[in-house]
């Protein structure tokens, strides 16, 4: 329990520090950080429509956050959620546009295929690591570009909608669209699927044999293999699930928001997922609130851009800062946490030295 509190504390502290540093940057830019953050908050939550839009953005982030959580929990550093999202989105788009099926079959098929294709794409770095020992950080990162550029080729040439000004496909069929939950916004049923996925992943790690094995492998792979657990197979399976979840994020984007595949469809949701997973300490349920937090920053920053001179990229800056604060083990946050703890006990000692010593 105590450990969990520390984790939450460090995550939130990292976030607050990032906001502070971001505030300094805003000041340097000649703006008022309080006004900026207030407009960000307003953009994210002030009206029902805003809240719905925030949740709509969060949907993709829950999926990519889960993707990251699954892989990292098994000890596999998957930096490739972005690429897996792209191939999953493409799979959903192709099914949604071309398969002549009724809606009750079309939508599930599109979702399943986006999961499968994202998952298979995620398995590539896993297999490379096991067979040849390549570092997964490098391969997953590079495969992002492969996916982004390949899908970009597809939407600019074979799949390009006739007469479209930029690389994009035709719209998906009506039956492939995720039902809208709040009218006038893009808040859609994908959000419910994302929450369901988070619950499933949570119980998967908590209650299933494979989930237990994956956790042990992630904590100490040598020990796991000494127990007779097939660590390699588990890595492949976990990367299938991880890639699949990112792929579903892509499907949610195509079938719930854009209704088509547009070149460069994700503004970096896969990388946001990395921050979210990290902040959630790879706990599937904790992914949800952090995904909403980042969804709010993404949707609120657009309003902020309108009301102030600050570009919406500020939210990316803040995210980068969060990673920076959290990732190094002896980071500022840990320093502050230790300092607070220590100060408390030193204060106690000092009080002991001043007052009588021996009434223990």
């Amino acid at each position, binding site marked *: 329990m105590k450990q969990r509190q520390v984790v939450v504390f460090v995550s939130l502290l990292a976030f607050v520090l990032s906001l502070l540093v971001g505030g300094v940057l805003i000041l340097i830019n000649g703006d008022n950080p309080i006004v900026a953050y207030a407009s960000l908050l307003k953009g994210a939550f002030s009206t029902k429509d805003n809240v719905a839009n925030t949740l709509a953005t969060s949907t993709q982030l829950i999926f990519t956050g889960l993707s990251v959580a699954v892989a990292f929990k098994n000890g596999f550093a998957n930096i490739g959620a972005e690429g897996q999202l792209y191939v999953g989105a493409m799979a959903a788009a192709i099914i949604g546009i071309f398969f002549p099926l009724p809606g009750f079959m079309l939508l599930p098929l599109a979702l399943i295929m986006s999961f499968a294709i994202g998952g298979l794409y995620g398995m590539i770095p896993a297999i490379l690591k096991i067979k040849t020992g390549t570092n997964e950080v490098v391969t997953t990162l590079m495969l992002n570009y492969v996916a982004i550029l390949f899908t970009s080729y597809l939407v600019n040439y074979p799949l390009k909608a006739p007469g479209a000004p930029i690389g994009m496909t035709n719209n998906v069929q009506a039956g492939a669209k995720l039902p809208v939950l709040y009218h006038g916004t893009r808040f859609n049923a994908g959000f419910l699927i994302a929450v369901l996925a988070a619950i499933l992943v949570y119980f998967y790690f908590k209650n299933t044999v494979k989930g237990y094995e994956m956790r042990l492998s992630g*904590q100490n792979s040598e*020990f796991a293999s000494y127990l007779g657990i097939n660590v390699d197979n588990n890595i492949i399976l976990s990367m299938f699930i991880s890639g699949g979840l990112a792929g579903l994020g892509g499907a949610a984007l195509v079938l719930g928001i854009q209704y088509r595949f547009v070149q460069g469809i994700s503004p970096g949701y896969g990388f946001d997922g990395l921050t979210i997973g990290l902040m959630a300490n790879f706990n599937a349920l904790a992914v949800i609130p952090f995904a909403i937090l980042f969804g709010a920053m993404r949707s609120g920053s657009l309003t902020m851009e309108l009301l102030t001179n600050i570009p919406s990229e500020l939210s990316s800056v803040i995210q980068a800062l969060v990673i920076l604060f959290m990732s190094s083990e002896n980071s500022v946050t840990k320093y502050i946490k230790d300092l607070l703890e220590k100060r408390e006990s030193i204060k106690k*000692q*000092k009080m002991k030295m001043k007052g009588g010593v021996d009434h223990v």
Partner: protein
Amino acid sequence: MTDNYVVDMENICKYYGNVRANDQVNLKVKKGEIHAIVGENGAGKTTLMNILYGLVQPDFGRIAIDGKEVIISSPRKAIELGIGMVHQHFKLIEDFTVAENICLGNEPVDKRGLIDKNKMISFVTEISKQFGLKVEPKKKVSSLSIGLLQRVEILKSLSRGADILILDEPTAVLTPMECEELFETFKKMREQGKTIIIITHKLNEVMAISDNITILSKGKTKGTLVTSETSADEIASKMMGENMGKPYLERIHKENSKPLLEIKDLSVIGEDNLEKLRKVTLTVKEGEILTIAGVEGSGQTELVESILGFRKIASGTINAEGINIADKSVKDRRNYCSFVPEDRIKTGLSVNATVGENIIGGYHSKGNFRKGMFMNFPTINKKVHETIDRYQIKTASQYMSAQSLSGGNQQKIVVGRELEQPNKILVIAQPTRGVDIGSSRFIHTQLMSKRNEGVGILLISTDLDEVFLLSDRIAVMFEGKIVAFLNPKEVTHREVGLYMTGAKVQEELIREGGN
């Protein structure tokens, strides 16, 4: 009064929740002595030393160094006060040289602000001479033996001006030879006026090296003794309370026992293309403890890893209960063999997992412990509770993380998990390394009762006392070969030592070995 003592800790209290790690502990150490702190694992020795080194802040109590009351808020403060600490697990950077490790953080720089390697090497050579601790400054740390690593750690502390040196279980990982060298080092340091505090639970060492002894038990001080006026028995009874002294192992003899683990002509080639095992042949029978004795690195690790399936074997066969397991997966082999690895932190458990998760590992996917793809928690929890009770694992609950337990209790998790599996063969390496007396005795008793039930045990141990205590037969290993099969009743420690160091070889084994 306090000015006689270089370290004076009074009334130290440290609570972790309801656990009283230190409860009104007193420690008084004179300048220039070797002071031993003894106690069971979990008695609070390490906590006390972590407080002295500024790693942990006490809840109550006062500390005086050289007669001056101080608050040691951090290791840096401790170093300023002349306190150095050598941890049980060394904190060295493997890719750095000896000199770079010793100077880490205090590197000498030249005029351009770059690290001055020559100065660094001459500095290390100088302090090495000054304290009579020989090291090769330019050697990479990764190539050093454990004894030398420790020496580098000691030099590192001394080079930072430590006058009071704390060593946590310094001999736990050393060979007998290295221990003797270490003791010589201690004596030299004492001559130079350094104060040495060692945490240990090996009483023969305490008797051999220390001047004074402070005994801790369950977080409390049980007294300070002058070594020359006491005996190992007195210390042990103070440490353990009343249940000491009884003989605790009963060996039941059995006739006509079947062979369980048969290894024939097993050869293994290491990553460096050297032969690590050379035609090893041995048989472990039902109800027998066969011990592999040997200096560390004689091929024991390779033997264990080949049996468990972590190492490719070059030739030979491994039969378990008459079935060749040499080609089987680790998981399949584990249906025959239970296994306790030598390094419990690295391969024995996951310190981040809970006690329960560690206990269930290995049979989590077998029988009643799963329901389809799910963990069957009622059965699992029952098993976990049984194991915690039976192996007297001291933990607040099964949901505590394994790293919150003391070393002895962690080892009990590993031993408990493996002994609870219904296998006929047990391969167990260094079962009591770094484990306190109480837990050691407990583990020994468990092993013996498994043996009496008919389990065949292959024990790997570098601790000769343990070898003699437990074995039915001793196989001595030297440079990857078995050089002798001995009956513990017919040989002395010294003789085994001769075989271990290659000074002696049984004739008939040379002929069989063919090399």
